[in-house]
């Protein structure tokens, strides 16, 4: 109702009803979960709620390695680094700015053993033996770059394209652009591997200036995957049902008196929807339905990999059920942030992540889901060739690696390069804007046609920047 009539859901609902002559029955579902679905072309005239071109992917699983994994120890070997280890960065690299200010600290040797894998001969270090077996499905992008120096702004950018808060996240744009395929589950889901808060907290999956209906919903494993989903402790179903029925009768009376306000119907429906979620959401995250073999594939049989394995398996179950965008944080709370002791830090985090992620790719593939599901892996930035505190590496946004698999990606290729020390991306550079533009493109969305009008400005997901990188699909 407030002053943005052309973006306001209720107003649009009304317009929708008035113009389409459809009854409240269909409207009832236009809450959080399936708003997009029930929305006809007037709803968001700019997007039409359908792809702009033929999509290659339907869903995204974004594996976010929070804190910034070291590309030069995982996917981007730099022989020169070990040759020059102990010396300062050569002057030819010019001035650089680092978060911790150790730009002239000695270069830190990479202790990794490197091998080429798969038919394509993709380089992967010994820290990721399992993902290494999947490289023929993976396009490694060695030439990513971003603008932020610190976690907060960089994570904000990797989620929203902007260093400063206030813009919608990629998942929100996708939800806005494509809607959900499942009425009883949120269309944009966020999960994390531990209970620390992800840097920046919920605004990473927030909607910025868009209405809250497009925001990510945090999901957890267990009987109550969504906050407040279950009855309060000690209150029986029967007691709840009597209450609900009284609520409905009171609400219906008020609604009948104010029939022009269609939100009132939607609010009645939202209670019904809430209780349908109560039935469906726990099923979606119930891993006991999976076979032992599947569980093993994700590393659920081992203590170290079990926790992230469960989340990866849940991700598959969710996309299977039509969830559009899964954002899965590994190392929530910047746990990959190896300013010191990179050996022990990365050994541990690679170990807990490697098997589950490989399991996810293999499982998606064997079920035929990989064609429709784009898997994206990476952090908010990479790490410096220079050392920090003697045995760690600082943040490096000027050159780092991400990879993509499935969803139309041509696997078995390595795109782009960094300089000889892995400090800066130099060839086929892909800025965060390009990454987002490419992800959107694969989903059939054109970054310039996906428009949300706010404050009279046509706002677009990549702030009018960025290009799709065609090599992702052509090689």
């Amino acid at each position, binding site marked *: 109702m407030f002053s*943005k009539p052309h973006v306001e859901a209720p107003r649009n609902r009304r317009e929708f009803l008035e113009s389409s002559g459809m009854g409240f029955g269909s409207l009832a579902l236009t809450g*959080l979960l399936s708003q997009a679905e029930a929305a006809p072309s007037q709803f968001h005239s700019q997007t039409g709620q359908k792809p702009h071109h033929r999509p290659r992917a339907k869903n995204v699983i974004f594996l976010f390695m929070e804190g910034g994994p070291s590309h030069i120890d995982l996917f981007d070997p730099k022989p020169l680094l070990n040759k020059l280890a102990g010396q300062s960065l050569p002057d030819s690299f010019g001035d650089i700015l680092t978060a*911790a200010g150790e730009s002239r600290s000695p270069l830190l040797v990479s202790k990794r053993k490197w091998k080429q894998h798969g038919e394509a001969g993709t380089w992967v270090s010994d820290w990721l033996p399992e993902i290494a077996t999947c490289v023929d499905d993976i396009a490694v992008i060695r030439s990513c770059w971003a603008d932020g120096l610190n976690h907060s702004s960089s994570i904000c950018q990797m989620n929203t394209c902007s260093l400063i808060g206030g813009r919608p996240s990629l998942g929100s744009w996708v939800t806005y652009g494509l809607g959900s395929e499942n009425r009883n589950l949120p269309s944009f889901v966020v999960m994390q591997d531990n209970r620390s808060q992800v840097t920046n907290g919920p*605004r990473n999956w927030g909607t910025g200036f868009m209405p809250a209906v497009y925001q990510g919903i945090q999901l957890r494993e267990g009987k109550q995957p*969504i906050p407040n989903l279950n009855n*309060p402790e000690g209150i029986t179903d029967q007691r709840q049902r009597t*209450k609900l029925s009284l609520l409905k009768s009171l609400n219906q009376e008020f609604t009948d008196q104010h029939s022009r306000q269609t939100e009132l119907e939607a*609010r009645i429906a939202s209670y019904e929807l809430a209780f349908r979620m109560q039935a469906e959401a726990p099923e979606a995250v119930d891993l006991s339905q999976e076979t032992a073999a599947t569980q093993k594939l994700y590393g659920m049989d081992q203590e170290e990999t079990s926790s992230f394995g469960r989340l990866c398996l849940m991700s598959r179950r969710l996309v299977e059920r039509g969830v559009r965008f899964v954002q899965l944080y590994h190392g929530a709370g910047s746990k990959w942030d190896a300013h010191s002791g990179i050996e022990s830090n990365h050994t541990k985090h690679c170990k807990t992540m490697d098997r589950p992620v490989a399991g996810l790719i293999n499982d998606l593939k064997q079920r035929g889901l990989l064609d429709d599901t784009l898997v994206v892996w990476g952090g908010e930035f990479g790490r410096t060739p220079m050392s920090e505190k003697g045995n760690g590496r600082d943040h490096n946004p000027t050159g780092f690696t991400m990879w993509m698999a499935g969803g139309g990606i041509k696997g078995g290729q390595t795109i782009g390069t960094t300089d000889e020390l892995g400090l800066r991306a130099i060839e086929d550079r892909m800025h965060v804007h390009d990454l987002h533009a490419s992800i959107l493109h694969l989903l059939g969305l054109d970054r310039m046609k996906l428009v949300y009008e706010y404050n009279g400005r046509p706002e677009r997901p990549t702030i009018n920047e960025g290009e799709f990188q065609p090599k992702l699909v052509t090689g």
Partner: protein
Amino acid sequence: MLNTFKNIVCIPVVFLLMLSSAHAAGLSPEEIQFFEKEVRPLLSEHCWSCHGEKEQKGDLRLDTRGHTLLGGESGKSIIPGKPDESLLIEAIRYESYEMPPAGKLKAEQIKVLEKWVSLGAPWPGADDTVPVRKDHGPRFTDKDRSWWAIQPLQDVTVPKPVAGDWCRNEIDRFLLSESEQQGLKPAPEASRASLIRRVYFDLHGLPPTPEEVQEFLNDQSPAAYERLVDRLLDSPRYGERWARHWLDVVRFADSDGYRADGYRPEAWRYRDYVIRSLNEDKPYNQFVQEQLAGDELFPDNVDALIATGFLTHGIYEWNSRDVAGQWNIMLNELTDTVGDVFLGVGMQCARCHDHKFDPILQKDYFQLRAFFEQILIPSHQVAATPQQLEKHRLEMAAWEQATAEIRKEITAIEAPYRENAKAVTKSFPPNIQAMIAKPVEERSPREQQLVTLGWRQVEHNYKELDRKLKPDDKEKVLALRRRLSTFDKLKPAPLPVAQQVRDVGPVAPKTTIPKKRTECEPGFLAIFDQPAADYYGSKQTDTTGRRTALARWITQESNPLSTRVIVNRIWQYHFGKGLAPHSSDFGRLGGPPAHPELLDWLTRRFLDDDWRFKNLHRLIVNSATYRQSTQHPQEQAMLAIDPENKYYWCADTRRLDAEQIRDSILAVTGQLNLQAGGPGVAASVPRRSMYLRMMRNSSDPLLEVFDLPRFFTSVPARDTTTSPVQSLQLFNSQQMLRFADQLTKRAYAESTADSDEAQEDAALHRAWEIVFGRPVTKAELSVAKEFLNRQSMLLSEQETTVNLQQQETATMPYRTGQSVVFRADKPSPFYVANDKGLNTENCTIEVFFQIQSVYESGAVRTLVSKWSGAVSEPGWLFGVTGRGSRRKPQTLVFRSFGRNSDGKVGDAIIFSDQHIEFNTPYYAAVSFHVSDEHAGTIDFYLKDLSNDDEQLSRITKKHEVTQVSENDLPIAFGQMVRNRQSFFDGLIDDVRLSSQALDVQSLLFTQESVLKNTLGYWKFDPVPGMFQDSSTRQYHLTQSDRMISAGSPRREAFVDLCHILLNSNEFFYVH
């Protein structure tokens, strides 16, 4: 007064570029070959896809020599013969632009183009066609100049509608005459009960009490409503409600944003200033002038100084080493906000390019920014007049003299730590370090700004000094401070500190359009053609006067934008929609106003009325238009004509916003505390939502779910969304059940009767009056009774269960899930019954916590204990010491009884010496070794969850216990058993107890799981259950004084009924 509207005579300036006709003819074969073989392929492969015939990014073509010379938006791309001055060469060197964007060219390729330019850019076959393009100067069209929002206010005559009797004032005459033409008829006036509710929510943001409703209904005089309106406008509640709207627009928050989201302890003074200003009906022009240039215009007015806080509410990243980059972001953010707030035009679009739809140039953006280019945001700035400062200085003299010696000693001890605190500047870029090293007088204005900004990081470290002090030094400092405090009586009251702005000096740094290198002076939108120079005041020695000039321009009556913008905002908040649809965008995309004459008439009236809001409110809410019912007898017919209610033929039913919802719940449950002003409080305090700490990264779940913005950018209007997440929050959260319980208590307390049955009846009636402001209807009464019968029957068949509704929970910052709220004044008993297995020798106790206060004495706020505090019942305790602890105030302590190495029984009190800050989330652990190779040591671990830069700290100490005594006591959380001097105050999240002294790798901080040696792991989450132990040993929690439900199913059913009322649409919507 200047005339705002000069028509601009603007001839598009066209310049012709003359090419030497001799060019093509004079090329040597080598030049031709060089171009064809080396240059053309390069240009073709790397440039032409974006700068060719099909696409001209940045208005630049590089596929002919003429176009290359002409250049693009950023100017000429090459200067033949001068590669170092050519933009093209800079761009491929990645010095300014970074071209091509996909990756830098190889060094030899760059050399080719350098050579080509130095040869004079030979281009075989280049003809002498002259490319023509309009210059980038103002080039406004007639359409631009006829943009409605920049036209002067029209002199409009109030129309005379046919059914004039209906009208109460001019607003009605405007709207009725238009709606009559559409064939519409106004709805009847709303009922009195609806009206009072509507106007209360509108002007106060709160529901009326049943007594207030009754009084209004009883007042039969014709002016009853107008009197009610006057009373509401005179109440301090008015300012509290309407300040909320303004704070939305100016993106006010109490925190920094970004990761650390640091609390801004003085931000609230601005919030209180806004409330104060509205309550005293300060004219809007003065209000604006104070916020933009209070320091320049009203230096003797403390409120005006606080008002400049407006310029400081943007987000700030406390550890950004890119000082210059951050400053640039901050100035741009401020420019965006000023455009949104005062001008209602999308300046943001023009940051990168001329506005595509509105006549706003990129230059306009930077001219607007130039008004702020020179600002300085000093920290810890006292808000006081020079006179007050002088008085304070004199009053301080006695104290300063008396304490000089002590302070000198403290300074001496702290000196090396302060020196260390400066080390952070070594992480800054070399140029910033050089600026810091310069004497103040040698710094340029820009350098001074950057040093001030960068220095905040040092000041941040100064604040953390206490944590860094070595134990010996800390004890000395504490002793000195105690001595210092004995002189406090000599000290005058401290002056208030507020976030403020002033100019860096009388000279401003340059404002430059990025990449174009065009310098900009302060200036208004070019389409107005008004020189800023006309608006400056007399020259001042310490300030530029730029902001004064802007403030004067914005607040002159003839400014068509700023005046309409504010009046439209007021209308929007009253009706839920503006007369112009986008209150912060009057541009072409925002759409034209629906009733332009009314907007102009109202604006004129507002200006004539001295820019005051209260009369404008009066005019609006007293109008017949405002007083209409939401229901119309011929609704279908009216809907067919005007489905969107563009002509205001009835009132709209509107959902309350987040703050109104929370405040209403607190009000009807009798919890609301109307204390006004002061620092923001946590959401658990039942004060108006206006006074909550607004943290950008974490907000109260109830507010958030009802579309509370995050305040990163200016918010012109709230969203209203409907989602199942709201329903879940309202229907299933413990919080709402607690509110239902409180409502029940209130309804019963406020109704008396002889019998139980009559009392229930009375309470029912009362509940309806409280929640809906109206009597219960007969039909509702019978439905409610039937519900109570059924529900109480159902409940009497069930076993009575623990009433968990009393337990308050919250989310700890930087954590997810639920934590327990412990209050020192209202302790929550949480026990694990004793068990043999819980008496352990080596042990690790781990806990996530956030503490709000410590005891003034030395008493310990307990985290976890197995002790009563009595020496006769030896046990152990882990907690935080009080301020008065002689040895170690405000630090972690572990106390344990047992047999010492000398064979005697005694206790070991070990302090961690790690300073514990208030309202900061921590992970803390104590790992206690009695046997094994580390016997006799204890490790304290502490991690500030809000500070990524700080690692997990570990302090190892020695102790003499060789055998811990056993006892029969339960383990108690947040207190010691039967001890009233031990209560925790704050949040406690996960607690884990292990039967081994864990090493770093196994700590809960990194391993959130049940390990082999885990004795108990309590998460306080709904899953597996708030009182459940997650470990295999199943040591579940109990509350010793269990709150068994009152034993009356009937009363329980009434709570359920109240819960339903608090979930109902009628409660959430105003009509």
